[in-house]
């Protein structure tokens, strides 16, 4: 009832933790059996080890949070030799999040990490600032994003999903450019850029000044973008942005996502992924579905049977 097939990914269910919100799984493995997860989107890997940004790196906002972790990670070599090897004990396909400051970085990391036995797909984090264009994020200019996608596709041993940034005027144009460049799927959305100022000092609460806004606050933006993009492309979408409950999952599927990722909610409730997975079958039954795939895109599919229809 829950299994989903996507390029490179044979998922037992469509629920997975989002990149950066689950580390490499070690901490959560002490709380529950990771084998329950559909997949794991591991923390971004870069060519070199990175410490990331100074602290404070997180701040709370209304129904959301800002983060500016700064891609802290031990570098792709260590991710491959330590983290991915450790993850081999679980029967869970891994989606490796790839980041960098220039095309060459992505290519380097993608080539290396896609060789790992349990890495079944890559997720290109194109929200990173591109040093060659003065810090403008790869994910805000369609040509730049397309070029990056092409370069990574050439070296990757596994299907490539590209993670869209919501900080654009035209998400459909971006998605189409990336599809055209050969991406196997899309993941969306990354965080919106936001900021909070401290009332006493007048200064930004986050040391990096701006941060990425995530959590329930951004869900309406994510749903709208998945809705628009899923109708314009023919590659599958893994949706995310503010998911906290099983109904949020269904809303993303209705919008057009084929699977979903849960980010910030893991911090609020570390058991949120297994809880949603456990609740999903009953909720689907209640709504009259026999398989989770029947939900996909039903907000816009003309011929979709109505939710309350039961045979």
């Amino acid at each position, binding site marked *: 009832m829950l299994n989903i097939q996507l390029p490179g990914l044979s998922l037992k269910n469509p629920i997975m933790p989002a990149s*950066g*919100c*689950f*580390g490499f799984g*070690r*901490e*959560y493995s*002490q*709380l529950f059996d990771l084998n329950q997860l559909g997949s794991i989107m591991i*923390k971004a890997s870069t060519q*070199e*080890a*990175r*410490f*990331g940004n100074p*602290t*404070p*790196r*997180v*701040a*709370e*906002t*209304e*129904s*959301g*949070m800002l*983060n500016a*972790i700064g891609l*802290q990670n*031990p*570098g792709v070599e260590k991710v491959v030799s330590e983290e991915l090897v450790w993850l081999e004990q679980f029967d869970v396909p891994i989606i490796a999040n790839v980041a960098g400051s220039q095309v060459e970085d992505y290519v380097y990391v993608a080539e290396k990490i896609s060789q790992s036995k349990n890495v079944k797909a890559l997720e290109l984090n194109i929200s990173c600032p591109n040093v060659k264009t003065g810090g403008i994020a790869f994910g805000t200019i369609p040509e730049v994003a397309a070029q990056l996608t092409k370069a990574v596709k050439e070296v990757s041993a596994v299907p490539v999903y590209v993670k869209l940034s919501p900080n654009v005027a035209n998400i459909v144009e971006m998605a189409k450019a990336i599809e055209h460049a050969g991406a196997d799927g899309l993941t969306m959305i990354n965080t919106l850029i936001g900021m909070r100022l401290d009332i006493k000092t007048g200064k930004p609460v986050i040391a990096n000044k701006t941060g990425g806004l995530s*959590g*329930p606050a951004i869900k309406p933006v994510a749903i709208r973008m998945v809705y628009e993009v899923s109708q314009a492309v023919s590659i599958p979408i893994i949706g995310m942005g503010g998911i*906290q409950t099983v109904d949020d999952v269904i809303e993303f599927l209705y919008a057009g996502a084929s699977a979903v990722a849960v980010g*910030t909610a*893991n*911090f*609020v*409730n*570390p*058991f949120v992924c297994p809880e949603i997975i456990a609740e999903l079958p009953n909720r689907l039954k209640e709504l009259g579905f026999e398989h989770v795939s029947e939900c996909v895109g039903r907000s816009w599919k003309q011929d979709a049977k109505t939710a309350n229809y039961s045979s």
Partner: protein
Amino acid sequence: MIKQELMVITKHEKIAEHIFQLTLQGELVAEMGNPGQFVHLKVSDGSTPLLRRPISISEINKDTNEFTMIYRAEGAGTQLLSKKKQEDVVDVLGPLGNGFPLGDVKSGQVALLVGGGIGVPPLLELSKQLVAKGVKVQHVLGFQTSSAVFLEKEFSKLGKTIVTTDDGSYGYKGFVTTAIEDYQLQFDCMYTCGPTPMLRVLEKLHGHNPLFLSLEERMGCGIGACFACVCHTADDPTGASYKKVCSDGPVFKAGEVVL
């Protein structure tokens, strides 16, 4: 083991200006270990405030399955928490982190416990456990002003206790660091928790002796997964090596991390 539990409030009272003492009951208490660990609290059902709040464990009573916290009601989350009543439940994730090691001081030796403001509470359980071990304890507790003072009586029962206030409105006038000098306190091991500037001075003055410091940092997950709470290690102060306050700390040995 880390657990999540809806724990029941058995006692909740205001003990100083803006300061509340909260006692919770539940099975999670069985998991608690060294003093200095903390819990991560969700104070509302909904998504405002969204994140959990880290609060130190101040006293543990394994017999009654209760533990106590002391917190300052200041921002949105702690203010909401302060409105909860006896028999209400609180969503607790814990126990988290590594507490103060008791192994570095032996029976008969002297431990000096130095707390600043809302850093005082975790030292209470520490003091109790040290006393139970036969260690002689001394306390220096710093507060801003007389209305902010709490736990003096409890600490006094366990050992010599010097209370300082920044404005001199109660006890010794001045900082904890100068009080330690003025009273010429002698000790084999120091444990401290409080504002980072205080920790920095203590590390500078006393870091050559056994000294354990409990740190604070903004947190996301509280369990080591989000990398919100990292600090540089002292042996690689600008490099990529790091410690996570939530899961490697919050207690570190002097000289281990960059404050």
